[in-house]
């Protein structure tokens, strides 16, 4: 069962927030309210009452629903203009002057007016979410249900999305139910429901600190906190302070579009470098060029003092580099142990040594009890740990992590960062990480901030705070650069 005994009432114009980790039951609750999944119980909206998807057909003209996933409801080959036309036709909207004005306003609010002819597939993640949102709002729904509209969206786009929502609630009295994985967004809601394991847990207060505390208390009560992490007798892979990666003027173009323009960046052993930027700023492209998944058009790249010019140069470096991709490249049909053995054999670690390492890491990283389970049956926090363990089996000097914490709950995220710190301090690893959680930036030693394919900041977190003395959080610093 994914959701038990949820009761909820909402007033006109109210924005209700569902907060919780992946798999906590938020999406199931939203699907049920939207009437697109079977459920037990009863839902009423105004005079409408429904208790199954079939009966909810009456609600559909009033409903605006945006399911979870970036650009999920968009058609990649259709332009922004064609999307608006399609949704207007499907919703059977009268195209009068009032409609045109409303449409124009939505486009302006979302900043999409200048991209009418761009195809959805070519929009950045944040723009896709904004287009999805205005398509969902085009028929002025009385009930707006949004499932994690801001996940994977940069802070700037997030602010803009919220502005549209706030305005809509105020002007039209729309009831909005919005789920999010960001505690910080709780402030923007009128009321917040905390989800955990299919249940609503009590809230201690409205600010994000109390919300986080609510989750911790609940986890403690249910005895659910993941085991602590500790790395013992780690072999040092490098002395702190050596330059292990040096990118000079790295440029990558796609046709006329320059995704990365002359980026310089340095990574030292025993250092965590945070790569930040809005959607479409060039983070992923940059990390892919560093990994050799994309060819560099201009500039130079040195990894461990070796100049990289083609794939051959990387061959011998493979054993020195570890990589955890955004979606954990695990095989779903193999158990955790089998997955790890497979990756160990790819790195030519002999079987006996592999088993020792698996035993060691699984105990120290607290997933020993899960070794014979399939990854898909495990909490995402555990998958994240064993993906990381897999990436460090061969004791690499450099570790690349692409949004490893997306969708992971607060508690697991905090423990994950502790683990990274251990790797950095005890083993001297150099870690390059991308993230959308600005609060995580504070754990990095150095920040490289990208904007429109260019580097706009490269400094320590402390120095950045000095530069913007009025900032109370890193998110505010981030937004300063995007003003």
């Amino acid at each position, binding site marked *: 069962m994914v959701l038990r005994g949820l009761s909820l009432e909402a007033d006109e114009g109210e924005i209700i927030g569902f907060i919780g980790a992946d798999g906590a039951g938020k999406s199931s609750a939203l699907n049920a309210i*939207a009437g697109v999944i079977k459920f037990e119980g009863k839902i009423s909206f105004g005079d409408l009452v429904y208790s199954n998807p079939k009966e909810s057909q009456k609600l559909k003209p009033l409903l605006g629903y945006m399911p979870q996933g970036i650009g999920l*409801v968009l*058609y990649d080959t259709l332009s922004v203009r064609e999307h608006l036309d399609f949704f207007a036709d499907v919703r*059977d909207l009268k195209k009068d002057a009032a409609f045109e004005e409303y449409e124009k306003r939505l486009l302006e609010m979302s900043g999409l007016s200048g991209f009418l002819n761009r*195809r959805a597939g070519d929009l950045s993640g944040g723009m896709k979410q904004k287009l999805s949102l205005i398509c969902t709002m085009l028929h002025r729904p009385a009930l707006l249900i949004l499932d994690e509209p801001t996940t994977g969206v940069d802070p700037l786009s997030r602010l803009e999305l919220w502005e549209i929502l706030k305005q809509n609630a105020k002007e039209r009295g729309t009831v909005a139910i919005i789920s999010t994985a960001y505690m910080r967004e709780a402030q923007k809601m009128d009321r917040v429901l905390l989800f955990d394991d299919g249940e609503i847990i009590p809230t201690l207060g409205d600010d994000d600190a109390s919300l986080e505390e609510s989750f911790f208390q609940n986890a403690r009560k249910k005895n659910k906190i993941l085991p602590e992490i500790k790395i013992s007798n780690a072999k040092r892979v490098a002395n702190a302070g050596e330059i292990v990666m040096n990118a000079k003027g790295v440029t990558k173009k796609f046709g006329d579009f320059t995704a990365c323009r002359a980026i310089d960046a340095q990574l030292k052993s025993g250092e965590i470098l945070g790569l930040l930027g809005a959607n479409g700023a060039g983070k992923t492209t940059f990390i892919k060029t560093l990994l050799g998944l994309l060819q560099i058009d201009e500039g130079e790249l040195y990894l461990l003092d070796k100049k990289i010019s083609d794939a051959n140069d990387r061959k011998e470096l493979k054993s020195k580099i570890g990589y955890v991709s955004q979606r954990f490249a695990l095989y779903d049909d193999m158990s955790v142990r089998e997955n790890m053995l497979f990756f160990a054999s790819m790195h030519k670690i002999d079987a006996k040594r592999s088993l020792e390492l698996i035993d060691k890491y699984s105990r120290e990283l607290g997933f020993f009890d899960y070794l014979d389970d399939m990854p898909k049956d495990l909490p995402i926090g555990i998958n994240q740990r064993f993906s990381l363990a897999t990436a460090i089996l061969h004791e690499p000097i450099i570790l690349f992590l692409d949004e490893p914490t997306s969708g992971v709950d607060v508690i697991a995220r905090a423990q994950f960062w502790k683990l990274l710190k251990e790797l950095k301090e005890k083993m001297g690893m150099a870690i390059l990480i991308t993230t959308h959680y600005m609060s995580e930036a504070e754990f990095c030693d150095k920040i490289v901030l990208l904007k429109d394919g260019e580097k706009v900041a490269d400094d320590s977190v402390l120095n950045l705070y000095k530069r913007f003395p009025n900032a109370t959080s890193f998110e505010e610093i981030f937004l300063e650069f995007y003003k």
Partner: protein
Amino acid sequence: MRFRVVKAFFVKELLELIRTKIILMPYVMPIMIVILFGYGIKMQVVGARVLIIDNDHSKISALLTQKFQNSRYFNAALSNQSEAEALREMKKANLDAILIIPPSFEKNLLKNVKSELGIFVDASFPSRANTVETYVEGTVLSLASEMGAPKSVITLNNRNLFNEALRDEEMIVPGLLGLVLFVAPAILTALIIAKEKEKGTIFNFYSSSVTKLEFLIAKLSVAFTLHSLNVFILFALVVYLFDLPFRGNFFLYWLSSELYILVSLGMGLLISILVSTQILAVVLTLMLTMLPAFMYSGIIMPINSMSGEAYYIAHAYPVMYYNHIVYDAFLVGSGFESAKNVEYLLILALYALGFFLVGLLLLKKELKS
């Protein structure tokens, strides 16, 4: 049903198909199949190795032998071997057929007394054996008619009654229409519905007031429109490229083809309800349409010579009914006058309607839970 909603989906679908270039699939695939199979499957046999054992040693038996030796279909040799020896040769795959002329063959023939010619055909490849047997029978029969003897000497296979020339194209190509028009529309339909499920855009249907009927009509009409053009393209291909005669009623051909496309669309619709990824939709549709359409279409084996389960499966699949109409349209030409054609046309209509209604019933505006 609101026309505007259907049109919106229709236009969107067409734009997507054009921009992803999938629009080529409905045309490239059928044309490829027809050309590949049309030229590729050769059941025609040239130079079959026949051993003739003449126990009569008469003028007529010599004439028969000569007829075999003069035919390009046969590579015939006269021998004094015993039957057992000849069969041993066949076992070693040195012979395709053995013809045994009985003693007093000439005498019986002149007296109109039934005489029995022994024919052994190597049946390791059944369809080739079938053809060789037909050729041998045909040759013997032509001798009998030259001599003015009654035809009861040898019974003939029905298969070459309309097909005097024994050209493979005439045997196979009309059947290929029944194959491609069954496979291709089903795949396109299954694909354009599964695509929405796989990507998540299906939520635009789930969470809006669009009805099941509107959604299905929109989806099916795209595939139907695109494939309707195929009815003419394939006709041109068959008549001009493969040089087949068209003896029947074009209206009947067109009507039955459109109905048959609807049947195929229904098939694709049912499959798309079961699956939620495009790859599964394609694989499943290919499996459920391609193999049976080929096996039970009458291309490689006449349906009236099937028995037991095979006979029932052949009748359960709509392929057989369409093929009958198409063979008739190209090679016979009895048109609407043939009661069987009309009956089969109705059966096709029932299939189309049935599939659509079942699909409409099974399609749910909700996520699988």
